[in-house]
């Protein structure tokens, strides 16, 4: 795995994500969804934020981003999150490959003193045909001191 030309991108790893019907039903229920597709279809489409559960498939050899960045969990906040779907929505039964990378890390003076760190983490989700079907982008913040 190589960094991009600018050297800012750091790939944390790649792993497989199998979209399971039970997980789709569980996730839909946990987010207040009642649409029958999630509970009756054999191959339901994923809920819009389902790819958050990719963390469950992340092997121990791929560190969670906050750990790779040495962030203190008691000072970590989730700032922003986005999902973009570039083709038909993934469905139960699909096998995707996830590549997680740190897109950028910036530092700022925190409002309450100390240094605040902002990291942008990108996950690319590729299907079995090698097509990019979804992209996730998270902004993780480590505050300068206790909230």
């Amino acid at each position, binding site marked *: 795995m190589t960094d991009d030309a600018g050297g800012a991108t750091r790939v944390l790893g790649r792993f497989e994500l199998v979209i399971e019907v039970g*997980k789709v039903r*569980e*996730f*839909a*229920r*946990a*987010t*207040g*969804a*009642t*649409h029958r*597709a*999630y509970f009756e279809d054999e191959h*339901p*489409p994923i*809920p*819009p*934020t389902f790819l*958050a*559960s990719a*963390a*469950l498939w992340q092997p121990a050899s791929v560190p969670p981003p906050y750990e790779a960045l040495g962030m203190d*969990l*008691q*000072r*970590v*906040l*989730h*700032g*922003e*999150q*986005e*999902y*973009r*779907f570039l083709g*038909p*929505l993934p469905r139960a039964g699909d096998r995707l490959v996830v590549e997680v990378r740190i897109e950028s890390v910036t530092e700022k003076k925190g409002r309450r003193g100390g240094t605040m760190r902002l990291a942008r983490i990108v996950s690319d989700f590729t299907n079995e045909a090698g097509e990019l079907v979804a992209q996730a982008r998270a902004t993780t913040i480590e505050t300068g001191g*206790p*909230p």
Partner: protein
Amino acid sequence: MNSDDLTEGQQLPPREFGPISRTDIVRYQGASGDFNPIHHDEPFARDAGYSSVISVGMLQAGYVGTYFVDLFGPESVREIRVRFRDTVVPGDVLRCVGTVVAAEEVDSARLLRIEVSLERVSGGTVVSGDVSVAGASS
């Protein structure tokens, strides 16, 4: 809801979620695999400076997703972007509402851009975001 009937500036029907319980938070943590103790371990959360456990931001994001699925169908959301503005604690009741900011034809499909806000019923925005929705019918 049929996206063909919607035009710029139109407000979508609001929907409430909650009151958020500790069980809702734990259920989401199990579903998502995010086991940050700040969301279920009271001493850990207090030690970090919070008055109680706080909800998972991505649970609130999930409610926003559900809002759009219920309005436009499970395959309608093409893009969802959320900003977490404030923490949510057990007992909070949340209200989701969207406003159409653009309606356009892209590759012969209708695409709506919607600004969305998840508010605490007792006051304050907890999530703001924008969502692109394609097609029609739920």
